[in-house]
């Protein structure tokens, strides 16, 4: 009993700790600049929608959100489409250079993004891709495919090989086995990797800042663009932040349904 109470207190502390910045951001987005800067902080205040009116009056923000949606959705979709067959091969087949390939996937994620910022910028410039959706989608693929391959390979490995062999005896070809056995049973891992990919693409700032100009600025770029040398319009920044966080939260809630563990339970024994 005492253990349970301590457990609950611990959990509550973690929840408060992780949610506080989020709550602070949402609250600030409904405050006036003077309420935001008040010290001690004001907990009871008259909410105002002025910040939201301001940011949506400026088409920059809504346009940026559309850009972010296009880039994040497409790069997530592509990394799942390209990453899951790769994961299937890595999980179930032995071939020459398999471990090297595996390391290559992982090492892609080890490089600090800023190291490659300049070469990528130059490449994009020569390819005439600066300030396009495509360049961001391509760059995010290099980050997202490893995530998908990583997580999904592990998930696929946990599927009993007997299932695949049973399907082979039932007359299924490789592609059918992948589609009818591995994809449905790997759904939890695929969903998790899709969430990670989406969140990464949605939040990414460095490359978005470097590779875009006016046309395809993404939401994080626009949020930071409010910071000028003379003023910090916290209300607008926080309102933009809230608007940025919203789609990711909704997306995660939708996909989390598929993250139920134990889907492979009952297959064997």
């Amino acid at each position, binding site marked *: 009993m005492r253990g349970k109470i301590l457990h609950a207190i611990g959990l509550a502390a973690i929840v408060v700790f992780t949610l506080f910045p989020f709550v602070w951001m949402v609250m600030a987005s409904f405050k006036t600049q003077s309420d935001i800067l008040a010290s001690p902080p004001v907990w009871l205040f008259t909410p105002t929608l002025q910040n939201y009116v301001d940011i949506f009056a400026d088409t920059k923000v809504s346009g940026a959100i559309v850009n972010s949606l296009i880039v994040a959705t497409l790069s997530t979709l592509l990394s799942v489409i390209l990453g899951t067959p790769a994961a299937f091969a890595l999980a179930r087949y032995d071939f020459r250079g398999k471990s090297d390939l595996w390391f290559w996937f992982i090492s892609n994620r080890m490089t600090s993004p800023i190291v490659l910022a300049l070469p990528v910028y130059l490449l994009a410039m020569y390819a005439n891709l600066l300030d396009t959706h495509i360049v961001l989608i391509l760059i995010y693929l290099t980050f997202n495919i490893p995530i998908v391959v990583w997580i999904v390979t592990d998930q696929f490995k946990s599927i009993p090989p007997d299932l695949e062999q049973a399907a082979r005896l*039932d007359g299924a070809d490789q592609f059918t086995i992948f589609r009818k056995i591995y994809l449905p049973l790997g759904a939890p891992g695929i969903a998790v990797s899709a969430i990670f990919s989406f969140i990464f693409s949605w939040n990414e700032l460095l490359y978005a800042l470097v590779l875009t100009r006016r046309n395809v600025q993404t939401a994080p770029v626009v949020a930071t663009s409010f910071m000028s040398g003379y003023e910090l319009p916290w209300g607008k920044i926080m309102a933009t932040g809230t608007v940025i966080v919203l789609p990711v939260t909704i997306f995660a809630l939708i996909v989390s349904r598929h993250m139920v563990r134990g889907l492979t339970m009952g297959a064997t024994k």
Partner: protein
Amino acid sequence: MTFLRLDNIKKNYGDASVIKGVSFAAAKGEFVVFVGPSGCGKSTLLRMIAGLEDVSEGQLYIDGKDVTYEEPAKREVSMVFQSYALYPHMNVFENMAFGLRMAKRPEAEIKAQVAEAARILQLEHLLDRKPRALSGGQRQRVAIGRSIVRHPKLFLFDEPLSNLDAELRSQMRVEIAKLHRSLGATMVYVTHDQVEAMTLADRIVVLRAGLVEQIGSPTELYDKPANTFVAGFIGSPKMNFINAKVSSASGTGLRLDHPAFAGGTLGVDTPAAARAKVGDTVTVGMRPEHLTVGAANPVLSLTLDFAESLGGSTQLYARSEGEPVIALTAGRPELKPGDTLNLGIDPRHIYLFNAAGLAL
């Protein structure tokens, strides 16, 4: 008529040779059991018949056709896995229908076939359930159902009962035997359990370390084991072995010396005995169930270690000069540890093996 034929089948993993040349033929409708200790290669052999493992050397024929390099699906075999390997995301109906769907059969036929299999296996009320909502025995039935809907040429079973508890196991054993009788299909069954082998098989293939030790009907293997391995593997409790020296031989009569024998010596007078010479070491085999307690002219005179009552029968553990001997006797004899145990046996039930372990 030969339906399944293995012609000097070999399997190597790199330098390691797992199956070292197995030849064997089964008739249509026969129930064949591969039996042997773990690691003997019986499952590998079965998987080669299924096509899930490549054959390194040799030829494999099913229904007169060379299928050595044929795709698993084209061999028209079905397999029940030890783990059942049910598709966890599909319900019972879809699990059984999967193979038919792959073969692109019309929906009406799929429904009829699955319904028929469900009827035979009493699964009708479970068709909507997912495998995780089934008990072990029910999953086993679904796995069998999945294999019968396609009417394969050959049924393969890979230790299908090893995950079930003892009671369910004997129940399923009877059901598999019934299924074999009603379908009249050729079945190959792998097990390490000699009771399953004895009760189910028309013919048993005893394997050890990738080689066939003996092929024969259950009673043949029991009555005429080819060597000490088969003699020890078939029958429970296992056969007692006593290594004795031949002290004299005349015609078919043989005199064997060992301290365990009553009076230190045992006379055997059978055609087999004629094949031993004076000075040879001969392994004498006696099955526990053939030994009788308190016989008029005992062959073994031993000291009782302890007795286990099984209710209707008693298992006696005795020893003499380091050779433990087990005897199985009906009822509950009044004996206590340390008592002298005089055991008799019908001379026809004495098995003789030479020094290499081969039957004389």
